[in-house]
């Protein structure tokens, strides 16, 4: 990279850092003397204190385990159903109304019903997460397959690609960029669902941590929990981008698109 380019990049980084610092400062000043909102430094201080405790760490691991289970289940279902619906007109027509209605249902609304069905606990929580994760993945998988070019479809037909083979050799790789876009949305949705399911559930997790602090009228604790969830979201997103960049190297090259 040229020197001018490096300087421009440094300037851009510095600008980002400056805006971030200014926002923190504004928070600090605005919250000063307030009983409802703690200052940024109080929150950071509390987060620093709580972080090493065994209880808190187990909250984080439990939340992550739930997210992983729900994500794998939901994304797996979403990709599988999406591949089938995208690859068969008949299946698509048959399932479309059902999917449209189900996906229009806010997953949060399912929590009370799932509590009755599965009781409080991991299975209810994982089901809620999986439900939220499934649909963005499903819809993106179907869209990705619909975007396969007629030339690619014809080429596959000429090369004797059969129905099942077409799903895995043509439709899946062709839809992969779109599937990844769905998965990225699903990571965020999944985190939301983790917190919601833990608000409703009993036991552990970051969501429960927040509710517990609220019960103790520990406002700073509530904000510390929020901060942790924000950081967790950031880390998960970064990790996801790393995976995506490897899996879709061919696509980002072909479209000239660059990931942030």
């Amino acid at each position, binding site marked *: 990279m040229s020197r001018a380019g490096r300087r421009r990049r440094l300037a851009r980084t510095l600008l980002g850092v400056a805006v971030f610092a200014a926002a923190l400062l504004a928070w600090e000043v605005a919250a000063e003397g307030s009983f409802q909102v703690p200052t940024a430094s109080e929150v950071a201080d509390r987060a620093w204190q709580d972080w090493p405790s065994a209880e808190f760490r187990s909250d984080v691991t439990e939340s992550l385990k739930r997210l992983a289970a729900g994500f794998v289940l939901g994304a797996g279902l979403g990709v599988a159903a999406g591949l089938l619906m995208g690859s068969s007109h008949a299946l698509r027509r048959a399932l479309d109304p059902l999917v449209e209605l189900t996906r229009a249902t806010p997953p949060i609304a399912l929590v009370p019903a799932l509590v009755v069905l599965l009781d409080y606990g991991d299975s209810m929580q994982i089901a809620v997460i999986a439900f939220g994760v499934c649909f963005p993945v499903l819809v993106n998988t179907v869209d990705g397959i619909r975007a396969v070019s007629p030339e690619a479809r014809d080429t596959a037909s000429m090369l004797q690609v059969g129905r099942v083979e077409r799903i895995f050799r043509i439709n899946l*790789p062709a839809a992969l960029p779109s599937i990844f876009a769905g998965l990225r949305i699903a990571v965020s949705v999944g985190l939301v669902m983790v917190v919601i399911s833990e608000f409703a559930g009993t036991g552990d997790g970051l969501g429960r941590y927040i509710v517990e602090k609220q019960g103790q009228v520990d406002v700073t604790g509530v904000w510390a929990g929020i901060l942790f969830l924000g950081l967790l979201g950031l880390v998960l997103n970064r990790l996801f981008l790393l995976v995506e960049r490897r899996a879709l190297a*061919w*696509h980002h090259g072909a479209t000239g698109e660059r990931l942030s």
Partner: protein
Amino acid sequence: MSASPDGHVLQVSGLGKRYGASGPAALAGVNFEVPEGELLAIVGPSGCGKSTLLRLLCGLTAPTEGTVLLDGRPVTRPPREIAIVFQDYSRSLFPWLTVVRNVMFPLRRSGLSRSGKRAHAEAVLREMGLEGKADSYPWQLSGGMQQRVAIARAMVSHPEVLLLDEPFASVDALTRAELQDVLLQVHATREGRPATVVHVTHDIDEATYLADRVLVFGTAPGRVVGEVDVELERPRTQPETRSAPRFLEVRNEIQALISARERLPSTPSAGR
């Protein structure tokens, strides 16, 4: 390879295609044969059903009238003996596969070992002048090179018939001339005897330069309006062949056939 007793690889008789029950005919009453080893060009204005014809020849679309016979057997679905190259290479190559994997794709059930397939694909790539590009992705190559990859993929399984649908229409003039020579080479060198090629184009000069015989199509409905035997010597080379007196005769003859039809009042037909 077993052409029908009279040596025709492809026989088209009474072929017609209508899209929708009451739609206009895209193609009607088309009859012709392609002898083994011939390079046949099909020329016509847009909307003459050239692309529809290719789709019917390779079984991607079913005709509403008539039949296509390949080696004497009716074509009802894409036969493995036919390969096709489309105009839009960027959409027909698989972008998630490297160049060599694209070319290996037709060999996936060939029974060759993985390294055998790769060696074979690399040999075809070399013939196409794509040495050293095996592990690139298609988007890393120029348009002309991508179309070479598409031709390599079509030829790797030694098809009996190669169909090309406006294959060089999306590249610049210099690249087009290069690719025309690549095609001539493909036609000439396959296993010691010429491959059978059906080449659809709207470029009269290209048809004249490449073909043994040119079928001229007219519109509304798409049908054969004339036929010209090129009778230019092979091997052909760009400057010599194009400056031969016979080249001008042929291209003028084709031009005349097209112009004669164009002047007739005709109802617009439904494109491809």
